[in-house]
């Protein structure tokens, strides 16, 4: 029997067996960075189906990251071709500077951890792992570096190594709730539910408002509750429901919904909704780029042009406006303004110097020059001390 177009005749209408090819314009742009013998290919294009610009990262030919471009509101108003170009430029600039910074930041554990976090958000596990291990070598009880490295190990498919690392970290710093929660998460992934609960309870004891720990606790009870057959209406697993209620207690509408839950399936559904909300609030990518710019300013200022910093500030402001108004991100924004103020003072001083040095020496320029000289120097010292 042959297969022809007639076979697909449907109510007299012939359905073409050949998919209609839409001749949609491609805006693809690419750039490559070679660093330490590795190739990093960045590619940016407009996805007509998703109506969104995507950037992809290939490490030595393997696709490691495919994510929607995160442009500022103003940049999104540009023509598509320019948006694609800007998205590629930003990613290229960030990645190139991060790769170069590796050999410039020395032994500073904060810088090593921050840069490691940036590579983690780019799915560059090897680069992230090396820096985080180095951060721990130089600061033995650096809890945040332990937590970040444990996440890298999980992503690399090494849960046992991640558990060993976190158990050590918890022994070194038993009062850091994040470590208990991170360890519990890896235990959950490895099916060690009782151990996971033990550490989740400890995390909640240390931080009674720990939203993520309540969600993980809820998941631990959902995992162990009977749910082999979804056709029957299973009763609510009490502990899972309680954990969910505690997670949602600050959100009155969700709390009211959870209060009315009557089945296992509803608990599971609400858990997924809250987990999804939490993921939407996850600002790890913003924080990773903030820390990258902070390190760039302090560790490699000559390669951070003032305009690049100003554009980054514009982007960060737009992220804060979009519901990421967190105290630490505001503190970052304020610090970046201070850094930009340093560049401005330097440029002003130079301009006044050129004005004052000319034959038509302007008294006001000369005074401004003198004032700024001291201020610029003092600001440079202060900027080195600002903490994020």
């Amino acid at each position, binding site marked *: 029997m042959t297969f022809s177009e007639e076979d697909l005749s449907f109510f007299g209408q012939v359905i073409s067996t050949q998919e209609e090819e839409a001749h949609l314009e491609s805006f693809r742009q690419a750039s490559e960075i070679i660093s330490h013998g590795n190739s990093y290919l960045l590619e940016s294009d407009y996805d007509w189906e998703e109506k969104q610009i995507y950037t992809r990262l290939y490490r030595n030919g393997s696709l490691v990251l495919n994510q929607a471009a995160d442009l500022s509101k*103003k940049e999104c108003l540009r023509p598509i071709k320019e948006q694609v170009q800007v998205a590629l430029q930003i990613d290229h600039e960030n990645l190139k500077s991060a790769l170069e910074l590796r050999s410039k930041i020395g032994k500073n554990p904060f810088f090593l951890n921050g840069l490691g976090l940036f590579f983690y958000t780019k799915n560059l596990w090897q680069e992230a792992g090396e820096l985080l291990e180095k951060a721990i070598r130089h600061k033995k009880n650096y809890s945040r570096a332990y937590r970040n490295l444990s996440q890298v190990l999980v992503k690399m498919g090494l849960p046992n190594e991640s558990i060993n690392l976190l158990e050590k970290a918890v022994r070194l710093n038993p009062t850091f709730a994040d470590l208990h929660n991170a360890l519990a998460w890896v235990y959950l992934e490895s099916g060690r539910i009782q151990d996971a609960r033990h550490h989740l309870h400890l995390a909640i004891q240390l931080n009674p408002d720990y939203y993520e720990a309540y969600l993980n606790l809820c998941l631990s009870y959902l995992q162990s509750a009977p749910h082999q057959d979804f056709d029957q209406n299973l009763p609510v697993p009490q502990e899972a429901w309680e954990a969910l209620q505690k997670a949602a207690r600050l959100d009155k509408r969700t709390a009211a919904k959870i209060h009315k839950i009557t089945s296992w399936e509803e608990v599971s559904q609400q858990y997924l909704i809250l987990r999804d909300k939490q993921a939407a609030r996850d600002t790890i990518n913003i924080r990773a780029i903030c820390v990258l710019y902070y390190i760039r300013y302090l560790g490699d200022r000559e390669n951070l042009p*003032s*305009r690049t910093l*100003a*554009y980054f*500030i*514009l982007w960060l*402001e737009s992220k804060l406006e979009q519901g990421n*108004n*967190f*105290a*630490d991100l*505001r*503190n970052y*924004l*304020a*610090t970046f*303004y*201070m850094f*930009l*103020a340093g*560049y*401005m*003072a330097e*440029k*002003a*001083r*130079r*301009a*006044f110097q*050129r*004005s*004052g040095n*000319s*034959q*038509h*020496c*302007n008294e*006001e*320029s000369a005074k*401004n*020059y003198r*004032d*700024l000289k*001291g*201020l610029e120097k*003092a*600001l440079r010292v*202060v900027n080195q*001390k*600002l*903490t*994020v």
Partner: protein
Amino acid sequence: MTEEPAESMDKAKAELELLSLEEIISLLGGGESEVLSDPDYYNRLGQNYLAGFRKCLQRGVKNYRIALSINPSFKKPLNNLELLKNLLQQALSE
């Protein structure tokens, strides 16, 4: 070079308080070697960078205060504000 700096300079002079980040960016794109022998040009340019400097300083302080209002027990913005206060006091006394 994306914009004639003199244009943005006049704007910044007239609307010092309204200087936006976009204007600061366009100011940063201004060339310093455009008019090599005109002291007035450099004086104006310096005035505008000075306006940008003040604006950045203001916004820095404002955002540290917002960070503190979001989380009053967050020590970092408080310490940073203290550092800036000392800097300004020192600069004013000199």
